[in-house]
């Protein structure tokens, strides 16, 4: 028997992963589609969508979720940008422990952090409700907003700033014309790190909010708990379309896919 020439084809190494992706990522998406568009008789139908969206509460829930996500993301950005700016500026950029202090909470279980925050709000007399939920979102997502902005500000070439100053611009003008435009990809990355994940953060709204503050993720979870798989899948399908839309907008704005901040720390 002749020995076959050994061909080094390490692409085969990716096959286990590709198989896992097919079975556990692609098939579930197809199943969501199937359940969403399957009528009671098993035939193709828009029945689930009609049922789900004829309940005005579900329509309102989508609107409310977008509102909660937009408001908490905006507040988080307004706090995180100045912090990132200061951390990236001299002399603070020479104290590495300082930036570490701001992202340490990222590594503590988020439910424990929410429990801690809720205890504090109880003590200082802020009751469960809309604003408590917003505070919870801002507190939970803060490091994820801070890190991409900080990373990009830190890497801005300082000679641009010096050139701007040499050419006679004051620090306000330098910030508006140089720093701010150069930091926009970080800002967009931070926003996308927070805006969509808020839709799934029903733990925070359930623990800190009241009856009126609930995100669409809570609705989907409760439909599944009640074994209404068709309705839950229909809502998920709409959410999926929204994810794709937001991703495309983000991609158009930055020209690249978003990276995760935890990944940046790990490297």
């Amino acid at each position, binding site marked *: 028997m002749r020995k076959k020439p050994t061909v080094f084809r390490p692409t085969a190494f990716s096959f286990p992963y590709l198989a896992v992706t097919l079975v556990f990522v692609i098939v579930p998406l197809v199943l969501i589609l199937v359940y969403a568009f399957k009528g009671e008789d098993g035939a193709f139908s828009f029945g689930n969508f009609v049922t789900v969206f004829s309940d005005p509460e579900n329509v309102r829930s989508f609107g409310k979720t977008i509102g909660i996500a937009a408001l908490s993301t905006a507040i988080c950005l307004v706090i995180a940008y100045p912090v990132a700016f200061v951390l990236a500026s001299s002399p603070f950029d020479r104290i590495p422990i300082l930036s570490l202090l701001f992202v340490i909470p990222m590594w503590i279980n988020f439910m424990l952090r929410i429990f801690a925050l809720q205890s504090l709000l109880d003590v200082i007399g802020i009751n469960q409700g809309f604003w408590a939920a917003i505070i919870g979102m801002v507190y939970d997502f803060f490091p994820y907003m801070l890190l991409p902005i900080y990373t990009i500000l830190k890497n801005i070439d300082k000679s641009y700033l010096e050139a701007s100053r040499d050419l006679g611009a004051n620090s306000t003008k330098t910030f508006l014309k140089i720093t701010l435009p150069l930091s926009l990809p970080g800002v967009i990355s931070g926003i996308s790190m927070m805006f969509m994940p808020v839709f799934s953060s029903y733990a925070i709204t359930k623990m800190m909010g009241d009856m009126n503050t609930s995100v669409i993720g809570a609705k989907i979870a409760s439909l599944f708990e009640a074994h209404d798989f068709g309705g839950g899948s229909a809502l998920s399908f709409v959410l999926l379309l929204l994810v794709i839309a937001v991703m495309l907008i983000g991609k158009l704005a930055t020209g690249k*896919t978003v990276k995760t901040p935890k*990944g940046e720390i790990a490297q």
Partner: protein
Amino acid sequence: MKKSVSFSLAVKWAILIVVLIAIYVPLLMIVAYSFSPAQSVGDDFGGFTASLFSKLFENEDLLKATGNTLLIGVVSAFFATALGTTAAIGIHYMRRKTRTVVDASSQITVVNAEIVTAIGFYLLMLFLRETLSLPVNFSLLWIIVAHTVITTPYVLLTVSPRLKQLNPNLLEASMDLGAGPMRSLFTVMLPQLAGAMVSGFALAFTLSLDDFVITNINSLGSGIETISTFIYDGVRKKGIPSEIRALSTIIFTVVLVSLIVYNAVKNKKRQNEKQSKGEIQ
């Protein structure tokens, strides 16, 4: 002029300190009250005591949830590292077009809303159990599988860049010198990837520890609890036992110590690299 510089410095310090206080006061309050017998945080502190720590070690449900969290984290991170690293190697040798498609598909769970991923797993289980009649059910194993799937892309993202930096001649030299492709891969390539694999493992582990949505949806009916679902159910139903504060203190300490050690090691490595580079020049 001098005055305005020191004023802006003071403002900058003030911004940092105010935000740091907002971040740490809730955490430190829990740590402080983990040494108090008070029923809930904010009550009269009472005397300094470690009783909550001994109560923690008697609370079997909470210990079970902690054990589950760690078990799910370690096992899923192990498989995610294996899958993600082999995938990174395979993808590295793909043609560009194929690679673009595979890279895009690896991003699906990263960018998707967690709740959609979670119900996808749930529907998959229904499909396997009811349509294909396979003998599977919601279980600890199922949660481990789900966590492996969602964390593998992060390992891939961590290992791939390192792979691109490797010198391809080393692998070829090894094969020219008579080592088989598998042996070359294990003795030449993998050791160079070890650092990235450790980072990938740590990342997968912490992502698994932090997960709530996937576990919550996929433990419906199986009664499996992790720390996250334990607290969530406690807030909604039976109330949170006060020994959770002792658990929080332990977790804060572990996180703090490991991050400080990690950063110290990293800084030292960087300094050593700088030094050896200086010597060469």
